[in-house]
């Protein structure tokens, strides 16, 4: 009996891992990742869609990238006709729901590239969760005037 439930659990675990192309220990699928490459050493904005397939509320508390010295989660707004940006400490990923980082809203600000990043290249970002888990994401570098991961 005990073995059986363990087998089921293992089977379920394998199933979750199989459906996501990004290796997600947290049961969060990541799709549509891209970043906007700006000239020189200007910071780049990174965008991605998270799909929390678990029935637990998860919380993103930070991000890091081997390709950039710093990665910060920000949120832009143009409320009241003023464009402003604020640092965000946490981003909630509600259970069984999707959340999209997109231009004009949540984004990960990537600063001080460790090597020149050119459009077409891939950048890795690891989002850190409050429970100690991580969500690895691959973002494709796009030109400054791109509107998304593909145009």
């Amino acid at each position, binding site marked *: 009996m005990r073995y059986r439930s363990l087998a089921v659990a293992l089977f379920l675990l394998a199933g979750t891992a199989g459906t996501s192309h990004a290796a997600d220990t947290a049961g969060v699928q990541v799709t549509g990742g891209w970043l906007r490459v*700006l000239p*020189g050493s200007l910071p780049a904005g990174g965008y991605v869609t998270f799909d929390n397939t678990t029935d637990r509320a998860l919380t993103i508390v930070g991000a890091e990238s081997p390709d950039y010295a710093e990665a910060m989660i920000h949120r832009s707004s*143009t409320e009241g006709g003023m464009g*402003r940006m604020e640092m965000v400490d946490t981003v909630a990923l509600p259970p069984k729901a999707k959340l999209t980082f997109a231009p004009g809203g949540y984004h990960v*600000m990537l600063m001080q590239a460790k090597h020149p990043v050119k459009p077409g290249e891939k950048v890795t970002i690891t989002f850190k969760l409050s429970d100690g888990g991580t969500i690895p994401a691959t973002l494709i570098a796009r030109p400054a*005037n791109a509107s998304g991961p593909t145009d």
Partner: protein
Amino acid sequence: MKPSTCRRFVLALIALLALAALSACQREPQPEWRLTDVSGHLPDLDFKLTDDNGKSVTGADYKGKVVLMYFGYTHCPDVCPLTLTQLHVVLDRLGAPADKVRILFVSVDPKRDTPAIMHDYVNAFDKRAVGLVGSDGDVEALAKRYRSAFTREPDRADGNYEVSHSSAIYLFDAEGKARLLATPSASQDDIVHDLHLLTSMETRP
């Protein structure tokens, strides 16, 4: 003619004249703008700044071009690129008339934005974009002229900082008259529609 017939004739004539006067008014129809019409509410395009080639320029240098003016800064990784990308897509969709349009990207971060940095930045978005820089005073004067505002936010630990700024896009006709105001959330269809109208308006010789 009986006096009453005569009176009726005169009344009809007056009515006819009034109608003619009305239709004369309507002969110059106002374009059906989709963006916010600000004609007569904001001053003409006028400034003294430095373009991204290091050349001194004034508003008069853009006479003959429809101008899309936007305040921002290059260290802005999200909203400014989003807006400039939208304007780039809009101009591509506009087609040939886009040759008569210039995007003027005015930096509200004179400390970090040099003409050279602005040059690479604006050209990464659109060849019809011009980056403009100036002293704190010149940029403030221009922002004030268009009731635009910007604030340098406190420095972060790493010495970097953000600048909050008005996100409106100002549209001027080829004579430098302020015509329309668009928000970054305005639909591309609406901007393309109004640019078609603006670029096809007759300019006075």
